[in-house]
């Protein structure tokens, strides 16, 4: 592993941990409001993206597998957003 690759790898972890702590903090203070919940879901997607592209080493791959893997968290988190909007409208 080159020094640059090692530094990038450590930076990825730092970003993931920041997003994890930040997401939990924002989620804890959201109080059921829509905007912070959207922020939490975006942060969750960003974490998943880092794991897929950097941990699974798919950043340089342009194949269908990469797109499908990125679509999986996007779809579920979009459904979570729809659920929150539905519950807000219902109640």
């Amino acid at each position, binding site marked *: 592993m080159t020094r640059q690759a090692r530094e990038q790898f450590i930076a990825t972890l730092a970003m993931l941990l920041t997003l994890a702590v930040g997401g939990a903090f924002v989620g804890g203070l959201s109080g059921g409001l829509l905007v912070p*919940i959207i922020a939490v879901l975006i942060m969750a997607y960003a974490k998943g993206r880092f794991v897929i592209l950097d941990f699974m080493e798919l950043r340089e791959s342009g194949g269908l597998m990469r797109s499908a893997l990125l679509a*999986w968290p996007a779809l*579920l988190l979009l459904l979570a957003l729809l659920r929150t909007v539905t519950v807000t409208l219902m109640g």
Partner: protein
Amino acid sequence: MATTEDIGLSVGKTESGGDADSLLLWILVWSELIAFGALLVAFMVMTVADVEGAALLRSHLHPGLAALNTVLLLLSGWQAALAVRLGDGPVRRPLVLAALFGLGFAAVKLFEYSLEARSGIGGAGALAELYFLVTGFHLLHVVFGSGILCLVAWRPSRGNVVLIATLWHAIDLVWLVMFPIVYLT
């Protein structure tokens, strides 16, 4: 006809079996993602159908402990990814550390379950059952994966390191999506 290279399957390719190993690996990964996807969709549908039950369930959960578990699993995934990057180098240490972080996740989750059981989470009814099913199924994967990580660390081969690391990242990814759906939104 498209090859596995064309659809981006080469990441998991191992030195011994090439495309066949790679295809098997991604079938395993996708079977996990589809199973957990179905469970999470069911959980979301249930929370819409039973809003009061969902609020009751959430009042018993501990997002702080779940956030700690997110950190543990990310550190674990990072060590597994490091083992893959080291190639034929010294992979035992990162694999064992990945397994230990995974077991740390399991310990925190069991502690969280004990708190929830004592606080009477069962009052949330079917939603509580679904919560234990979804998170418990994931917990079993983490414990099993930690064991496999230890086995691979004992006798490491490049192919096995790539295989368990990729599966471990899939388990990690499932938690990253599960965490906001179950605890935060």
